[in-house]
């Protein structure tokens, strides 16, 4: 077994494990903001790990470049989506995005 094969297996196992933890977290926590934390992990950490596994196998081919594009899209655009979702959740739960008077007073 080559070193690259071991690296692929390691990155894939870690990526799948992180995705599993994120999915379990989304189910287990009742609050939308807690769920968003786990969704954020699912959109940033696991794409990097699984993308690293694919890049280990397909370094400079078309597949490798497409993988880099997918990783960049997920990692860059994912947090923007999380922020938009959090703002919508604040608007639904509290009626406003900004901090409420009770939150400001402590």
């Amino acid at each position, binding site marked *: 077994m080559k070193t690259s094969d071991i690296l692929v297996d390691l990155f894939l196992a870690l990526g799948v494990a992180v995705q599993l933890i994120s*999915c379990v977290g989304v189910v287990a926590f009742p609050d939308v903001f807690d769920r968003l934390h786990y969704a954020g992990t699912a959109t940033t950490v696991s794409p990097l790990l699984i993308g690293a*596994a694919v890049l280990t*196998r397909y370094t400079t081919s078309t597949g490798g470049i497409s993988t880099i594009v997918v990783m960049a899209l*997920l990692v860059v655009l994912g947090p923007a989506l999380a922020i*938009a979702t959090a703002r919508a959740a604040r608007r639904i739960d509290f009626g406003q995005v900004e901090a409420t008077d009770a939150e400001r007073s402590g």
Partner: protein
Amino acid sequence: MNAFLIAATALLTMLVLPGFVVLRARPIDALVALEVCGTTVVLVLLCLAAGFHQSVYFNVPVVAALSVWTGSLIFVRFVGRFR
């Protein structure tokens, strides 16, 4: 069956967990779970493309990543507005 196909199968099985939240929770919670489903599907497509050794298959996760992000943003916009 190589490691990429095994990972794709495992990731596909995981869709049950956020899928349960999509069906049972409030719309805003379901939207968060839907975002996780979308990311998982993109990763499944990436693993399948790598597992089948077809370079043309790698275009599918690129389009899926863009579509999932755009679709989720539209859902967020309307869920936040019409509560």
